[in-house]
Every structure is written in C-alpha cells, then in structure tokens.
C-alpha cells in the first residue's frame, strides 16, 4: 500500500483562526483562543472559559453568501466554511468529477437552534424552518449541498473521537477502492446543551485549561470545524497532485469500562494505538510527536498518560495537547488536531502544551512546553470519547 492514503487539502475554522494559515500563526506564537463566551446567553458565562469563534451566525452566513431563507445551524455554517477551504486547498474545481464522498462528524448537530426555539417553534412559523435541521446528519447534508457534492454522504457521532473515525472510514473507503476522493472531518458549535452537560459532570475549568498538569481542573469547551481531502493514488498520479501528508495508520477500540469515564489503565487508548501501529506497519519508536487528546480533565490525562507509558515505555516521544489553544471542540477535535498534525509534518514543529507547570504525580511525563523545531516524519494523534470510544490516527510526511 505504500505510504498510506494521500491528503491533498485541508480547511479549518477555530477560535485561533479562520484559515489554516491563521491557525498556524497562532500555534507558532503561542496565542490561544480561550475567552469568556459572547455568542450564547448562559448563567455560566463568568464561571467557564471557552474556545469560541468570535463571529455571529449572520457574519458566517454573509461569508458563505447564503440566502436569507437558509436554515443552516451554526454547526453547518462552521462546517461549510472549513469544507470549502479544504476543497479549494486541494484545487478541486469539479467536486463530482470522481466518485466522491463526504464523511462528517458532529456531536451537537443542530442543538444550537433546538435549544433556542424549543417552545417558540409552536408560535412562530418563520423559525419552523430549523426544525428539520436538528438531526446530526443535516449538517453534513448542508455541507454536501454547499459544495454541490452528489454521492456517498454520511456522518459519524462517537462523541469526542468522532472526527478521527470519519478520517479512518474515509481512508478505508479509498484504500478499498470504493471512493476516489473523500472529504472527511467534523464540526461542532458551542451550545448551552453541552456547556450544561459538561458542567453537571464537573469537568469544566474556570481558567485556561492545563493539560497533563498536576493541578489541572478540567476542560475548556470549544467550537470548530476542520476537513481533509483524501484522494486515491490514481488521481494523485493522473493529476500530478501535491500531497500534504498521508494517513498512515488508524485504530479504534472500546474501553468497555464506563459510559463517560476512561479506565485507569487506559485499555481502550492502548488498544487503539496498537491497532494504528499495526495498520501503519510502524513501531512506537518511529513516532516523532504525539498530539495527545489531553483534555485537561483529571480522568482523561491520567488514563491517556498510562496508555502512553504502556505503548512507549520510558521512551515517550515529544508530546503536547493543543486543547489549551482551541478548547475541546468535541466531535471536531480530531479533525482540528489532524490539521495541526499535518502542519507539524510540513513545518517540522512540536507545539507548546500551554499552561503546563507541574508534572502529574502519578507518572513521569512532561509535555513539550515551548514550541520546538525538529525533523518530523510521523505524528500520532489520539482522540477519546464518551462511550469508551478510543481512536488513534498516524500521519506521515509527504
């Protein structure tokens, strides 16, 4: 199979930038996107910090040139922006030229509109257009329509590992020759539903989150969307296309421990990483940088750290969590971090794990705290979600 599945385009909108270039500049200058929430009315405003995109829906609608009659939710708006960038980056002019698919992912779908209009729908006919946009698949359908894509369109929702699974499935469909080209990634908007949900679990931080720090208090929620374009070797050869990086390996496993908590031994994470090494035909010592899931919740970082020690022994590569930049963008997180992994390969970078001060007492793992330049051939990216869902992706240099 060679190097893996070729990535020819990427697009991203997050709280640290509305393009790939803006995201890279923020990462290079340690500029985070964590702030107080503005776009949502919530009583938790002053007690949490979030990675919010400071653009209103109207601004996003204008940027996409959508008609006033549109019924895009914020999740769909963010997704359409990022997916469009990815298509342009891959220099695709006719999206239906080959057998093309879209595999998106989301956890909230159209919840932003549902929570706003839940009871108002009954009295106000003009907002009823948003009723059918509640379901998660609607955001993917909107993105496909916006791109003019006709073909295989699907959506994955496995909580915070969703986008990793979309990338995985896309790579498998290309490998198996089922599709020639596939746009993969995820999108999630901030909403009261998730803010309150995570708040009841008492895992939201009132300050900038501190992944892998002994004093970490929890996560910052965020919103973002990112997509990659994966293409078959035939198209690459035929069109002499530039390859940004490759999806070299992937693995998904279930922790089968608890609906929301990760096991202390990091079993699911360990199994996901092992599978990814097997698919990539690589050994752990070949990994130059690990973009950890690193949500900064007490439970995740302990479980993930233990899993890393099981995989890497005392030779853990340079690692960092970029969630202190963007917040935890839930279903989109793995797509955001896939873009960062590709940028790490292209620019030979290890990003800083912001806000880290004190190593965790349970093990001897210290993340990279300053941005570092070094040769990078392989990046491993982890994403874990509720329901014990654990996913690992390995990216390799073009």
């Amino acid at each position, binding site marked *: 199979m060679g190097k893996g599945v070729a990535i020819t385009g990427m697009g991203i909108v997050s709280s640290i930038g509305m393009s790939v270039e803006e995201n890279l500049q923020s990462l290079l200058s340690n500029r985070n996107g964590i702030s107080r929430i503005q776009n949502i009315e919530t009583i938790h405003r002053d007690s949490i910090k979030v990675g919010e995109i400071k653009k209103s829906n109207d601004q996003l609608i204008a940027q996409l040139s959508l008609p006033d009659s549109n019924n895009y939710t914020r999740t769909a708006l963010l997704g359409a922006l990022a997916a469009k960038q990815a298509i342009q980056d891959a220099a695709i002019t006719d999206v239906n030229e080959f057998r093309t698919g879209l595999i998106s992912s989301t956890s909230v779908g159209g919840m932003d509109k549902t929570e706003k209009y839940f009871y108002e729908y009954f009295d106000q006919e003009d907002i009823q257009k948003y009723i059918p946009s509640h379901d998660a698949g609607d955001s993917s359908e909107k993105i496909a329509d916006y791109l003019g894509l006709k073909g295989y369109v699907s959506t994955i929702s496995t909580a915070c590992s969703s986008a990793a699974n979309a990338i995985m499935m896309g790579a498998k469909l290309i490998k198996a020759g089922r599709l020639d080209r596939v746009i993969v990634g995820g999108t999630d908007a901030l909403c009261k539903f998730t803010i309150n949900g995570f708040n*009841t679990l008492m895992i939201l931080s009132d300050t900038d989150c501190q992944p892998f720090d002994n004093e970490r208090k929890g996560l910052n929620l965020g919103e973002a969307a990112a997509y990659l374009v994966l293409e078959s070797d035939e198209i690459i050869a035929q069109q002499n296309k530039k390859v940004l990086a490759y999806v070299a390996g992937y693995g998904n496993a279930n922790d*089968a421990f608890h609906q929301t908590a990760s096991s202390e031994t990091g079993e699911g994470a360990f199994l996901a990483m092992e599978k990814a090494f097997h698919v990539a035909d690589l050994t752990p010592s070949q990994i130059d940088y690990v973009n950890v899931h690193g949500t900064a919740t007490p439970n995740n970082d302990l479980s993930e750290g233990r899993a890393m020690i099981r995989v890497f022994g005392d030779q853990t590569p340079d690692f960092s969590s970029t969630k202190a930049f963007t917040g935890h963008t839930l279903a989109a997180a793995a797509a955001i971090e896939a873009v960062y992994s590709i940028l790490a390969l292209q620019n030979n970078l290890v990003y800083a794990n912001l806000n880290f001060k004190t190593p965790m007492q349970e093990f001897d793992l210290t993340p990279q705290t300053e941005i570092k330049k070094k040769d990078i051939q392989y990046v491993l990216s982890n994403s874990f979600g509720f329901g014990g869902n654990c996913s690992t992706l390995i990216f390799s240099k073009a």
Partner: protein
Amino acid sequence: MKQKVYINGIGAVTAQGIWRDELFEEAQEITNNISYALQPGYKELIAPAMIRRMSKGIKMGIYASQQALNDAEIEQPDAIITGTGLGCLEDSEKFLKAIIANEEQFLTPTNFIQSTHNTVGAQIALRLGCKGYNFTYVNGAVSFESALLDASLQIETKEAATILVGGMDELADHTVSLLKLIDQVKADDIQQAVKESTTTGVNTAEGAVFFTLSNASTKNTKAVVHAVDIRNVVHEEELAGWVHQFLAANNVVAASIDAVILGRNGDVQFDGYYDQMGKVFAQAAHIYYKHISGEYDTASAFGMAAAVYIIDKQDIPENICWNSIRPNEIKTTLVYNQYRGRDHSLILLQHVESS
C-alpha cells in the same frame, strides 16, 4: 474470490413486538400517526436498577443485539456498528427541558450522559465487555446503511470475522410534536395506512433491528449481503440509471432481481420514487413494510430483515406484498429506501447458495 458477508442472526424490537418467525403473519397494519414499539421484558438481560435508568432506545438496542447474537450462536463480536438518525432522543429532550425549566441550574448528569448519539453502541459494548471497533453513524435515513457498508467492508477486507450491526431510533414526544408542525408526521386526526394514504407526512414509529454478520456460513446463515450503496441526492429521473450502474458494478442483471423491498411510507409527496423504482423491476415481486414497522430513520433495517426473511424462508407473507407477482424462487432481493427525496440507499441481498 471476494469474501462473502453472511447474515447469521437477526434480532429486533418493533411496533409488532420482538423478532420471531410469526412476526409478519401476526402483524397489524398501522394507521395511527404514532406507534410505539412493543417493549419486551428486559429482566433477563439488564439489572433492575439499570432498567429504570436506561432509556427505551438503549434497552431496545440491548435486546435486539443480544437476540441477533443468540440467533447466530455468537457470544462476542469483533465489532459493534450502530446507526441512529436521532440518537437517544428521550434523554436529550429530558436534559434540554431541565435546562430551560430550571434556567441552567440544579441539573443532574444522567440524562446528558445517556444523550450522546453513541450511547446504544457503547452500552452494548459495555454489557458484552467488547473492546473491539465501535462506530455510530447518524445520517438520517442512511444511518443504518452507513453502518452496514462499514460492516460489510470490514468482513470483505478481513478486518473482522463477526460484526454486530444494527439501527435504533426511539420516539420522544416533543420531537414528534415538532415534526407534526411541519407536516413530516401526519396529523392526529388522519388515520391512513401506507397503501391508502392521500396525505403528506408519515406514520412515525420506533424500533431497533440488529444483525450478526459473519465471514463464515453456518447452519444459521439466512442470506448474504452482496453490496450496499448510498447517495445523498438522486433525482427521480436519475433513479433507473443509478440502480443499473449499481447492479452492473456488482455483476447482477436487473432481470435476476426476484423481489424489491421498497420503503414506501405513505407520504404522497415522495412515494413517487418507489413507483419509479418499481417500474425498473416490473418483473419482480414488490414488497413493502413500513405499514407494519412505521417510519423512522433506521426503519430500513427492518426492511432488510424482511428481505432476509423471504430469502431464508422462500416465502413472501401476503400482508407485505404490494403487487401480485410471486416468484418461484427468491434468490436475489434489492432493498431500496429514501426519505423526503434524500438519503437514498440500495442493499443487494442473495440466497446463500446462489451468491
């Protein structure tokens, strides 16, 4: 030679009760706009404290998946792949209502924890202690087909030997009342079955249907999944071209299709797609099933169960026949579904001996 994908087990919780040989014979035609699934006893499968806490969707998923495993005589699958259009709606609604009613205060996490779309797949894995691959697809009417495509690909590429794959959707009151507002669900005073419908909207329902897929044929094998295809948009005039292309790509001629299983749901605005598909297969038996399952995002999994049943039993129950054609042998069937002109899917199934 291509690795075949055998269907070795079926399980379901539906508006007609649990999966059983007599289901079709005993089925009552639905004329109500809302039909709840007939809930089985869960005591043998789930601890009493959990029964109370778990939503209907999770319980239906657990029951259907265990029935499918038992039917195939499999204890532990290599992977669990679930499709759900609207996920765990009941918990989502409860949590959202509490947020609004209490202005974001005094909330407890249980409903939020269970509201995640992958809760059913996760709870099945947790119960079985299954650490394998676990995906949940959430794309409206192709949620189940997305799961099936993933599962068959994994069997064909030898990534997995046995896979539990299924679909689950549950009804929740508030969502149904919203769908009535926009005429996607028929009004309360309309009592029309699928065949006699003169109105837009559907008779909505809920259910869970699971299959055990395997790389090996056993005495329990009922049929073979030959191919699956999904399209977000197909116009009525493009339908014939698409299906012919699909069949050709899978080395099947249209004349060899013995029965087409059509997802007619009685929405007069969109059932024209099924008329078009029927015309492509004028020589075949036309089967319909949503008059007994009701319509929901993953109802097509019940359609596939009907297709598997008629291949396995070599018998088409009278009450699911749409036309009068009765083939002598049922070797190949095609399941076609769409919802509101979008999310089109084709599932090609074959008899184990003729596959």
